[in-house]
């Protein structure tokens, strides 16, 4: 991960929660349903400011990573909201220090819009996931509609200056990284989605 990307998300930390408030109202129930499926040792990738901690079940061991130290400082304040024991770790999803097959569940929440090399990141998640483990993702992706997709492509250079990419093809990336999709659910249009995947 580049220093530039880390610096961008360090800067974004203070304002991230303001933009997330509406998303929590709109999509919170979908996240609760998806993240409630986490079992055993669970890895939360890109914890951000910790707004998703409250959606996890109590009977798991949660490890939450983020490459931004400022994000983790904000997330520290929300550790008490997590029903499960939680460990915060500064780590880059494209270069994880965890051993192979370490986690039963890996969870991402609006993560792979921001990872500069999504295939490398997904490859690392595949490596640290057990063979019978599950990947649970809440992500926004490029819409399949020609017009909306084109608009996202046009807007993306502006969007990525201050935040995430808005035209990622995450389903294709999952397959390319060696995952098999077991569930795909449209939350808003075909732009905000839930994915469940296992190793192919």
């Amino acid at each position, binding site marked *: 991960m580049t220093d530039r990307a880390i610096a961008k998300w360090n800067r974004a930390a203070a304002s991230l929660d*303001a*933009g*997330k*408030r*509406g*998303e929590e*109202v*709109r*999509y*919170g*129930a979908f996240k609760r349903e998806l993240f409630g499926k986490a079992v055993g040792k669970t890895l939360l990738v890109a914890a951000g400011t910790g707004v998703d901690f409250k959606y996890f079940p109590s009977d798991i061991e949660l490890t939450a990573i983020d490459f931004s130290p400022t994000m983790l400082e904000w997330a520290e304040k929300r550790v008490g909201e997590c029903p499960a024991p939680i460990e915060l770790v500064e780590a880059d999803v494209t270069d994880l220090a965890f051993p192979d097959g370490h986690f039963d569940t890996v969870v991402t929440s609006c993560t792979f819009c921001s990872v500069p090399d999504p295939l490398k990141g997904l490859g690392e998640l595949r490596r640290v996931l057990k063979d019978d483990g599950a990947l649970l993702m809440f992500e*926004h992706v490029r819409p399949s*509609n020609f017009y*909306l997709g084109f*608009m996202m492509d046009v*807007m993306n250079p502006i969007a990525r200056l201050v935040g995430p990419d808005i035209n990622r093809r995450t389903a294709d990336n999952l397959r390319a990284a060696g995952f098999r*999709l*077991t*569930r*795909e*659910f*449209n*939350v*808003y*249009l*075909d*732009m*905000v*989605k839930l994915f*469940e995947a296992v190793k192919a």
Partner: protein
Amino acid sequence: MNSDHVLAVRAYDTFAALCFGAAAAVAAWLVVPNGVVMPLAMVLGMTVGFLSAFPLLAVFTYILGGFEIIVMSMQIGMVAGMVGVMSGGDGWMAVATVGALVGATVHALLYLTDRILHGEVLGS
């Protein structure tokens, strides 16, 4: 979300759509000079409408954001901006009303599209 929340969010989104439409149409009507050939005026109107949506997008995102707000701001801004320059010079109130109607229409189309797409694509 419970049903009260759903209704509140829908009302908020509809209000945002009306504001995006009115603001984009008025901005385009004010900025694009009279006498510009219509095809060029329409393109300029789309551009001005699109750009005028950004300040409102920041406000509506801060209050109760979401991808619904982002997508509608882009679509309504462009269409209402284009319609704003086509609607003539009957005063800003008339232009704002036309823009708000455009906003409501685009919002309704996006809502219907979402209802068609929403749900399981694969698995259960």
